């Protein structure tokens, strides 16, 4: 077990990284550890625990801005926002259930480091799209800042967005400033049943290509539908979410029903059933409770997703479903073997990237993220070196040497 080291303020965070630099120690940076299973399995000499660096430092609802120190529990932030009828619009995934941990854990720093957005990614963007500013400590042990607290800012390079999703390999966030948005007063979900993958893709494409402002579009095959209490019936379904003010949702329901007319009859899920349904989609709940069997998350062209999901089922025995109007394929492999080459070969004709989200440490010793073409790989290593020349921050967590 690596030595455990906790900090509770920015100065001691900088000191801890500086010490690692001077002693040549590799740090495993973590908050509460809910996302510790993500990324490549990397060796570390010391665990740097930033969960003590906690607290919401700024929240101005009518300016749509919130700043919090990296170790602040995400649940605390979401509760505060909900009290003011606001939200993190990117709908961050709660990775707890997928990793066999309780729901509702995790810190904002971990959320930022992983950039795992939920169903609303489709309409509202990812974590990075809402990143306004950061304070952080780079692998040089130096405190730096970038961005700010305002919505519109091109003063210098956009480091806050670039650092989102970098898995703590470049810098340890000290404070994160995000754009927040109003919580829609109401939501509902329209369901269409029994479509094959090709028709599912067409239905989602038609819905997204309409002016209905769909904020969630998922397709589930019959086996997943049958196994989940959130889904009525046991046929394949396409689910489309509408959110907003009551009169608007009502009007868009009528519009969407006519868009979907060629695909069959429509059933409506009212809240709270709609909320439960999208939480299931967001958190990969169909794959929770399956130990460390390998789980993939593939991002691709939306129209290709449903057929790709079917291919993974037919050729590799994976259980699958699609989010992001088909652009995100979740796949649970039939065992601990990740079968990375086969998964990536299936993805290749459509473009995009595949990430091994959950697997045993042995499986995660190899490629977890999409392998990079050589010029991009070299550039990625140079970017890593620019922030962390001695390789002290989560070395190897994204790629070998990164």
């Amino acid at each position, binding site marked *: 077990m690596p*030595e455990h080291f906790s*900090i509770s303020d920015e100065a*001691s965070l900088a*000191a*801890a990284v*500086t010490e690692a*630099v*001077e*002693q040549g120690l590799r740090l495993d940076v973590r908050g509460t550890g809910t996302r510790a299973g993500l990324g490549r399995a990397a060796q570390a000499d010391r665990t740097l625990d930033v969960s003590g660096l906690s607290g919401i430092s700024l929240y101005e*609802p*009518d*300016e749509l801005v919130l700043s919090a120190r990296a170790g602040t529990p995400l649940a605390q932030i979401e509760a505060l926002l909900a009290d003011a009828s606001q939200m993190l619009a990117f709908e961050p995934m709660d990775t707890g259930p997928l990793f066999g941990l309780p729901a509702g854990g995790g810190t904002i720093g971990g959320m930022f480091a992983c*950039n795992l*957005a939920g169903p609303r*990614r*489709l309409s509202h*963007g990812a974590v990075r799209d809402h990143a306004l500013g950061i304070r952080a400590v780079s692998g040089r042990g*130096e405190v*730096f*800042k970038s961005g*700010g*607290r*305002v919505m*519109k800012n*091109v*003063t*210098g*390079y956009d*480091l806050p*967005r670039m650092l*989102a999703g*970098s898995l703590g*390999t470049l810098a340890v966030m000290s404070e994160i400033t995000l754009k927040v*948005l*109003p*919580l*829609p*007063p109401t939501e509902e979900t329209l369901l269409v049943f029994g479509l094959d993958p090709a028709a599912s893709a067409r239905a989602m494409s038609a819905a997204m290509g*309409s*002016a209905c402002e769909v904020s969630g579009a998922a397709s589930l095959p019959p086996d997943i539908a049958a196994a989940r209490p959130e889904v009525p019936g046991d046929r394949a379904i396409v689910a489309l979410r509408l959110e*907003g*003010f009551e*009169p*608007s949702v009502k*009007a868009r329901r009528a519009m969407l029903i006519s868009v979907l007319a060629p695909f069959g009859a429509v059933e409506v899920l009212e809240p709270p059933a709609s909320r439960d349904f999208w939480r299931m989609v967001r958190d990969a709940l169909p794959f929770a409770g399956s130990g460390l069997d390998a789980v993939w998350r593939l*991002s*691709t062209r*939306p*129209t290709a997703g449903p057929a790709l999901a079917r291919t993974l089922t037919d050729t590799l025995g994976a259980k699958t479903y699609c989010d992001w109007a088909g652009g995100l394929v979740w796949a649970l492999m039939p065992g601990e073997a990740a079968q990375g080459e086969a998964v990536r070969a299936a993805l290749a004709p459509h473009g*995009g990237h595949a*990430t091994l989200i959950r697997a045993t440490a042995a499986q995660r010793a190899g490629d977890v993220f999409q392998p990079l*073409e050589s*010029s*991009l790989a070299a*550039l*990625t290593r140079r*970017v890593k070196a*620019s922030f962390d*020349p001695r390789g002290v921050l989560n070395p190897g967590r994204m*790629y070998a040497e990164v």
Partner: protein
Amino acid sequence: MGLRLPAADENVLARRADIIADLSSIVPGEGVIFREREMKPYESDGVTAYKQMPFVVVLPETTAQVSRILAYCHANGIRVVPRGAGTSLSGGALPLADAVLLGMGKFNKVLDIDYANRCAVVQPGVTNLGITRAVEHEGFYYAPDPSSQIACTIGGNIGENSGGVHTLKYGLTTNNVLGLEMVLITGEVIRLGGKHLDSGGLDLLALMVGSEGLLGVVTEVTVRLLKKPDVARAVLVGFPTSEDAGDCVAKIIAAGIIPAGIEMMDRDAIAAAEAFVKVGYPLDVEALLIVELDGPEAECAHLLGEVSAIAAACNSSTLRVSRTEEERLGFWAGRKAAFPAVGRLSPDYLCMDGTIPRKQLPLVLTRMREMSQQYGLRVANVFHAGDGNLHPLILYDANKPGELDAAEAFGSDILRLCVEVGGVLTGEHGVGVEKRDLMPVMFNEVDLAHQQRLKCAFDDQGLLNPGKVFPTLHRCAELGRMHVSGGQVPFPDLPRF
């Protein structure tokens, strides 16, 4: 004008004839421009106060040519300034005496429109509006709409992370770009993103957007397309004070409403715009808001009611809702013509571009009025009120000795004020050369070094667009040094478990 630019490399200047010949072998025909008369259109961008004749202009047509040009420049230590349509309002495309000006105007094709996946693949020289024009017959559009959208290119939009009046609801360029093909200074071609969402590795796409041509040359862009909302309605609201107007914006947002656009103009800007386009703006108000709502008719009707009630509660003195599309466009015509309208009041004006936390607006306006008296120069304000992006227009006459210097000093003071109240130096025009020397107002040396080391990761010789964004040029070796204090543990009393 006392603008400092990197000293020209005499070795490069001395080899001009050879360099022109070498470039001509890469881009044959009329793709290399080197006669002064023909290079004249390239000597400045949207900031016409700065002028510099380029060393040579090259207009490539293919990614392969861009790759060979950059590899050649890299091998020969020649600087490169990329340029789109040259509409930069920060001098981002200002040439250098010893730099190849790489004009991307011939990359003007829409390559692929994919309605089913709601995206388009275009070359970087396609104009912002050109993308919407190519897809509007199917009811789609490209969301960011900077006021220069008829002329500015998507490549330039990526360089500056351009916004427009609809960014609060629809986002900036960075939120609407899915993928890029780009060429590094070494000539290596890399692809970031595509028709899918999110990055498979580090999000270098996010870094490229807003990097002002310092990191690479974009040769292909995949943008997100949106379906046009059913209807859009605008409401024009006048207020006796800017505090009331600001309060109204805050209350609209606090009510959970994110309008498609919320613009504010002050008395001088209203008067100038009304005199110019005569759309019926009220002239007896201190502040005017244009609030646009879009979506299904039922949503617009509902929200117009809400917004009208909030405005009344905030002391609005006039309120008009657009009844027709023509009237809505009329409301916008004044706002969109605000810059030229103000331009008619004065021989010259400087357009500033700070962003502030919205609640600081009354303070900032008051302080600006004081500065206006101090400098003896008038200022008119237009404000993207939804996202806090302020465009003070400082009126001056370049023919009066000292007025340009005074206007620039006034502008710098305004930007310092923006930072002081929690805002930033530039919301959408970019740093370029114009705000370069103000960067230390917002960033300390450590902050800037982290950015400049990234530059080194992309361009170790500092050949791409040098002299822009960063106030000092450091050598990469110097920036890369680690300062380790001899193995001493600096905080031996830190808690350990």
